[in-house]
């Protein structure tokens, strides 16, 4: 019961989804399944929120290490949640919460600065990683180094300045043009080889799931 029903659901939903591509009467089912998927994903967000509350309340009650910061998480979570679900400060129920009200204010002044700085901080870690990657230890690493260097130079004014003396007949050797060429030819070829590999991987995994061969998603006692 605990194993069979989920398997039946996966197999039948998988087959119906494939059928929606090939059989016109079943065509709307594909769109509906996508919407069902989105709706269940929202419940997954609720599950994530519930779990976050559980973990941090537990940390708070048991006075675990750094429990004080759990208060910050819980307050931030609850204030944003109330502001968003209650549409506090918005003109009406139909107002877009991402454009007006307390939710929008918190988004632009708390969430956005925190998120973008978090990612911006990665620039420094990428710089230290690039120091290790850019040491031309062998031929492959040198190729990587040259490609990255040309792409970086090609997007800056210095790249243009360094090679703008090139004659028109050799314009491909100008660093910005070379950067564009790398992106549109060898990079495209590499990306395409990877995409074909991913495509084959997804197709084979999907077949394994629909045929009930792959069951690891059901958990340890999936048999």
């Amino acid at each position: 019961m605990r194993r069979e029903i989920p398997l039946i659901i996966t197999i039948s939903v998988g087959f119906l989804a494939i059928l929606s591509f090939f059989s016109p009467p079943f065509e709307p089912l594909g769109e509906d399944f996508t919407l069902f998927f989105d709706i269940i994903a929202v419940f997954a967000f609720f599950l994530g929120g519930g779990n976050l509350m559980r973990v941090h309340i537990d940390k708070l009650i048991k006075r675990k290490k750094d429990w004080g910061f759990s208060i910050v998480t819980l307050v931030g979570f609850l204030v944003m949640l109330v502001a968003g679900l209650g549409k506090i400060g918005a003109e009406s129920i139909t107002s877009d919460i991402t454009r007006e009200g307390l939710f929008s204010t918190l988004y632009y002044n708390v969430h956005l600065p925190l998120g973008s700085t978090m990612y911006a901080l990665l620039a420094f870690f990428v710089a230290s990683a690039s120091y290790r990657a850019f040491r031309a230890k062998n031929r492959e690493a040198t190729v990587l180094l040259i490609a990255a260097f040309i792409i970086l130079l090609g997007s800056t004014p210095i790249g243009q300045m360094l090679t703008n003396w090139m004659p028109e007949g050799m314009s491909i050797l100008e660093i910005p043009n070379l950067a564009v060429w790398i992106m549109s030819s060898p990079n495209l070829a590499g990306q395409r080889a990877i995409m074909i590999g991913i495509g084959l991987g997804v197709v084979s995994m999907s077949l394994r799931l629909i045929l009930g061969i792959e069951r690891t998603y059901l958990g340890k006692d999936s048999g």
Partner: protein
Amino acid sequence: MKRTSLIVFAVVCLIFVLSWVLKAGTIDGDNAIQDAFLVTLASFLTLAIMSFMYKDNAYYKFAEHLFVGVSAAYWMCVGFWSTIVGNLVPRLSEGLSEAFGVPYLGGELDFGFLTLPYPLLYFIPIILGAFLLFRLVPKVGWLSRWPLAFIVGTFAGLNLVRYLRSDFMSQISSTFVPLLVDWHGFGHFFANFSLAADGQFVAMFSNLVIFLGVVCGLIYFFFSKEHTGLFGKASRVGIWILMITFGASFGYTVMGRISLLVGRLTFLFKDWLGIIS
């Protein structure tokens, strides 16, 4: 709390208040105090995250924990209003649609041989979604496998065809490009030979690189045959093509991160401190 930490905390609070007051003086309008507070708050949160470059500290942890809480609530609210209210409610109930101010889309789902009313059909994701929440209750946690199975089945069924179409068939067909571009014979080719970016030679060479690059890249990923001889040489070319791809991706990632950093620094120096215009 150590004495030094307390002093640092007091100084940070003092600077915050000072910055708020000074900023309020530079802003015109009725909401000057509120706007100044928000700009100062955003700046201090930015600096709190940046303080991690020195070392892990309480201010970074504060900002990090705040981000986790706010992010979780943000996605919950956006999901609720855009998907539940935007897509589910209009198909579920006329009364609810009216209450939320969204147009009712009620109707029937016609399969030809079977007709189902929309509301009945849309109770399925609600029930499955509710089952997903049972994961928080250990005794009935196994029921959360049902929505998981639905998600996995939908993903597998829809993506099998989509990936076969977009990532496999169309990528292969796009790889078969003409190797002789704008060809009018060898005489014309050599007479007009140049390394111009929009020239004939570059166009032909680019197509050759794309075709051979994809073939050699795929050969590198083919592990059922030993990479020796001609096959090994092609695989080696494949590695080089992949290295160029990774180098290009790396360069783009670095640029993206740097531009984000420039954005944050611009905010600090322009919007907060007003040093640059």
